[in-house]
């Protein structure tokens, strides 16, 4: 007669076997951390693994607070602890008491090396980034045929922009053959008259995402003639594919949102344009009307005679100015003449003659010295009134 155990009973039994084993009570392990989670209560949960195998690990807060570094995925570490069974799930795990860093995680090292190499070659340079079409008609999707990523991408595209065609190029996204598969589909996709390619997968551990850190995948993305949006994992995951792609999306859903516009917004935009055009035209005509009004309201068009009035007035002013100028000139000349006349009056010899002086001439010469004369010369004496003819009788030189 068989005895049926409950699950709790068998798990409890197995746990007691583990706990009795001296070897399991104190184990030293080395491996790489992945799936690292820090619980809010301070306990750390992660997986420790090598190339072939893995084991779950837990480090309770009391032990975790003695750590002198922040553990993260990809780190190679040395562990000390005991291995036991968590009865609730039946999983065995290592209860870590001490942990220290064992060099840099190999995958991270590879990642950084490849990143540096491709950056050096210029694969990430902004000038190689292709412009994404604003209104794509046909989008290629390179991801796993099943799973959340393909659903998220296609349903988001259909919701936002249902008139866009999608073609799925199904590929392995993790594990053996994934990188070759991605490259093959990227190459095939070139022949399908696509406006855009979305290439990616949903979230996972760094190992799960690793295909997108492979050099051949990076080069295939770089060589694509069609713009590529990368959408690998979650917001925090950065892969080489992200650096080389024309645009990095934080998630597959994000990639679809970046790839297509919202058809509602496009319709609104076109309506807006129609309103804008009508407004522009009516403003344009209004402005021209206003310009015509402004011109026709000018005084000169209303009263063209005014133009003459202005000129006439100007003419009058000029005449006035001219008159003023002439009379001034005339007065000046008159005054000048008057002064000259008075000078002349002073100098007039007749005036001197009136006082009793006279002028003596001989042979058409005015005589002012006896040396000019001889006895018997004829003299003509001019008086104030009348003349006298005379003859020289005697000459006295009064020197």
């Amino acid at each position: 007669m068989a005895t049926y155990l409950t699950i709790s009973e068998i798990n409890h039994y197995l746990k007691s076997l583990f706990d009795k084993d001296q070897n399991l009570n104190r184990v030293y392990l080395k491996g790489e951390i992945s799936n690292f989670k820090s619980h809010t209560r301070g306990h750390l949960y992660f997986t420790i693994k090598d190339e072939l195998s893995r084991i779950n690990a837990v480090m309770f807060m009391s032990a975790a607070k003695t750590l002198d570094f922040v553990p993260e995925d990809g780190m190679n570490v040395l562990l000390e602890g005991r291995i036991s069974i968590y009865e609730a799930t039946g999983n065995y795990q290592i209860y870590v008491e001490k942990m220290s860093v064992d060099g840099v995680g190999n995958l991270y090292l590879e990642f950084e090396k490849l990143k540096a190499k491709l950056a050096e070659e210029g694969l990430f340079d902004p000038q190689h980034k292709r412009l994404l079409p604003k209104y794509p008609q046909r989008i290629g999707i390179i991801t796993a045929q099943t799973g959340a990523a393909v659903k998220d991408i296609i349903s988001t595209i259909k919701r936002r922009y249902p008139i866009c065609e999608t073609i799925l190029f199904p590929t392995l996204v993790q594990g053996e053959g994934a990188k070759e598969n991605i490259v093959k589909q990227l190459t095939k996709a070139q022949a399908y008259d696509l406006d855009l390619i979305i290439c990616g997968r949903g979230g996972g551990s760094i190992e799960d995402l690793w295909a997108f850190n492979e050099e051949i995948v990076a080069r295939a993305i770089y060589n694509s003639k069609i713009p590529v949006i990368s959408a690998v994992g979650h917001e925090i995951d950065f892969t080489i594919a992200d650096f080389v792609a024309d645009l990095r999306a934080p998630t597959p859903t994000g990639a679809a949102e970046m790839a297509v516009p919202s058809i509602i917004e496009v319709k609104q935009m076109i309506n807006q344009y129609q309103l804008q055009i009508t407004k522009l035209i009516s403003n344009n005509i209004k402005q021209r009307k206003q310009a015509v009004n402004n011109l026709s309201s000018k005084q000169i068009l209303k009263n063209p005679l005014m133009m003459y009035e202005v000129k006439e007035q100007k003419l009058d002013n000029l005449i006035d100015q001219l008159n003023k100028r002439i009379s001034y000139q005339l007065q000046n000349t008159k005054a000048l003449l008057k002064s000259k006349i008075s000078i002349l009056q002073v100098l007039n010899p007749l005036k001197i003659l009136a006082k009793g002086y006279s002028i003596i001439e001989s042979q058409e010469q005015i005589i002012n010295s006896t040396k000019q004369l001889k006895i018997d010369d004829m003299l003509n004496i001019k008086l104030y009134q009348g003349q006298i003819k005379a003859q020289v009788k005697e000459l006295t030189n009064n020197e």
Partner: protein
Amino acid sequence: MNKKEKTFEEILADLEQIISELESGSIDLDRTIDKYSEAMKLAKTCNDKLKNATTKVNKILAENDMLEDFKIDE
């Protein structure tokens, strides 16, 4: 006009071009009216394209390299 039909993107670009020309006020009056009717025609074409376009069926590239319809289970 036997030219290849313009894409939605090209028509929209033409429309935007006319709007910026109208905004700059550099077009004379006679041509303004022409541009207006052209722009309205373009806007209508865009709207029609959006209205008449039907939801496209998703495709998948099958093993045999043929395109087949692809349904995602919601």
